[in-house]
């Protein structure tokens, strides 16, 4: 009797697991086709030899990976570290981090503002936040260029007002890149922050004020810990695309201020070195992976870890 029961139980259990695999199949197929597959192809290309006019030759080669880290002198074949690559990687990480912080600084008050509006008005504000998405990023980048270039809106206005005599150089600087990247990525920070803030129980804020907390402490001791999931999600959503941006640095940074995205694009375009481009892409993925692991672990550790 009891054996039967156990058997039945196990059958049910196995069936249960089968069903779950079956149910998650669409997601697994999608992830396989759209995410893992392309990544494997890129990985494969990074170990092939470059073709003469782009593309790859089907021959195993580690030159792609070698060129990520080292450069060989064309004349005497001496090998040195690929400083240019390291500089660009480091620049990209710095700019992406700065973008994330700026998005947080501007996005938090925005999300807080929306979350504290009457419920029937919130969707209008959210709708306004998403309007920039309607326009192609390239066009938005050129629009910013128009605003900040030498004879652009800001400089013309400042000169007319007599505040400055000569135009300020803003275009083709890191400032321009940061401005553009913050502008473009801001909604990606605002939306998850809003989702967290909307769930926040505002009576807790009253409780904190009641217990003698200053405005600053209400923010740091109550609001921030409680909306941490939103902060983490928003930061990830901004940092990853910011790190691999390519349109913004191209249009607003000019030719000299490259980021990883531009470097990779160069290898698949003018550089005609697809294996190097593929190896650089994989490197970028690895950097993002480690950055995320590090961030999520540390963000989870410092208090508030038990809060969902």
């Amino acid at each position, binding site marked *: 009797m009891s054996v039967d029961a156990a058997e039945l139980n196990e059958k049910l259990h196995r069936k249960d697991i089968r069903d779950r695999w079956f149910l998650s199949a669409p997601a697994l197929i999608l992830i396989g086709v759209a995410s893992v597959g392309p990544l494997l192809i890129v990985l494969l290309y990074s170990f092939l030899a470059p073709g003469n006019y782009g593309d790859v030759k089907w021959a195993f080669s580690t030159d792609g990976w070698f060129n990520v880290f080292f450069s060989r002198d064309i004349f005497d074949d001496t090998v040195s570290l690929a400083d240019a690559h390291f500089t660009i990687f480091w620049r990209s990480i710095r700019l992406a981090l700065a973008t994330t912080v700026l998005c947080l600084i501007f996005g938090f008050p925005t999300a807080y503002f929306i979350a504290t509006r009457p419920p029937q008005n919130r969707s209008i504000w959210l709708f306004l936040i998403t309007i920039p998405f309607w326009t192609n990023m390239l066009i938005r980048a050129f629009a910013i260029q128009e605003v900040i270039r030498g004879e652009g809106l800001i400089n013309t206005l400042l000169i007319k007002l007599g505040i400055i005599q000569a135009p300020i150089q803003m275009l083709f600087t890191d400032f321009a890149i940061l401005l553009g990247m913050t502008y473009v990525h801001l909604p990606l920070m605002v939306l998850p922050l809003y989702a967290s803030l909307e769930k926040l*129980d505002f009576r807790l804020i009253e*409780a904190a004020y*009641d217990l*003698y907390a200053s405005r600053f402490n209400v923010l740091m001791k*109550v609001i921030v810990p409680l909306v941490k999931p939103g902060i983490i999600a928003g930061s990830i959503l901004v940092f990853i695309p910011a790190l691999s941006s390519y349109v913004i640095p191209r249009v607003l940074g000019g030719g000299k201020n490259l980021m990883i995205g531009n470097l990779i694009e160069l290898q698949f375009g003018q550089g005609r070195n697809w294996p190097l481009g593929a190896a650089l892409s994989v490197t970028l993925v690895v950097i993002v992976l480690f950055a995320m692991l590090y961030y999520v672990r540390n963000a989870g550790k410092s208090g*508030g870890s038990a809060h969902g």
Partner: protein
Amino acid sequence: MDQSSATASHGGAIGMHGIKKWFGNFQAVNDVSLEIRSNEFFTLLGPSGCGKTTLLRMIAGFELPSEGSIRLDGAEIAHLMPNQRPVNTVFQNYALFPHLTVAENIGFGLKMLGKPKAEIEAVVAEMLKLVHLEARGNNLVTQLSGGQQQRVALARALAPRPKVLLLDEPLSALDLKLRKSMQIELKRLQAETGITFVFVTHDQEEALTMSDRIAVMSQGEVRQVGAPWEIYDRPAERFVADFIGETNFIDVDVVSVGTDRALVRLPSGAEIPATFPAGTQPSGKVTIVIRPEHASATASAATAPLSGTIHDIVYLGTDTHLHVRLADGSSFMIRLQNARSGPCGYSVGEEIGIEISDDVAQILRD
């Protein structure tokens, strides 16, 4: 801001004068004036929506009065931010910080006041003991039961030793048994700490059990303020009499008026003395109230001040209710205490007289 005053443990008298509060066109509080004494257990009692929470929130500082002044120990506080008032709140839903432990919740106020760590730890330990949660200090509040969360909310609000503790229906989410024991617990805490408690409830029994004084509210106004016995035995108006306990209303004529008693004539022609609210001068036709337990049944219907026919008998274990139809058609209820076991000895359809105890009738303000 002077935060040292926020932790002083004496005083705590609140004076509200001419308080009005509008939300848009809706007036939630209408001309409330109250004097709450230091170290008092004061209850705001009234049906849902009568403005109790709004009044409490104005004392806490979450709402500004549209008009009127709020004084704490004589000093105007209506303009102060909540974090500048030596007043703490036990919220209806507790509003505990879910990301903090029990001890961190309790210590939050002292930490915000910038107290040294050692002092915070000592007070938190003391508070944990006071609310019988010694073993739970390191638990997250989300791991506690409703009753335990309630006690944490209490300890958190008491820890900074406010002058006044505001409690907004703190027991309404608890089951009956827990509620009864928490009522006793709250009384004990109030006595031990000497802090003024302003307690909000819609439960008249709870108010009568716990309070030193009660303010009965209705539609944004205070209808009557007094000790529990005054509210119960000497209701000033129909709303108060009706809201608290069960009662008989009888229309009578005023015969004569003395200093604190009037003589009134019952429909039967009998005359009995009745008290009346201070500051009124009863005359002509008035309504008196007589509580069901202040009347008793007698077989001699002819000589009793009231008489009628029993039309319903309700047995309640401790009591039996006799519903009597009077000569004028109105219904009168008598509460008999079941002092002996067995049936009450009356039957439906029986003609009885109703005796009224001495000095129990109260004339209502019109």
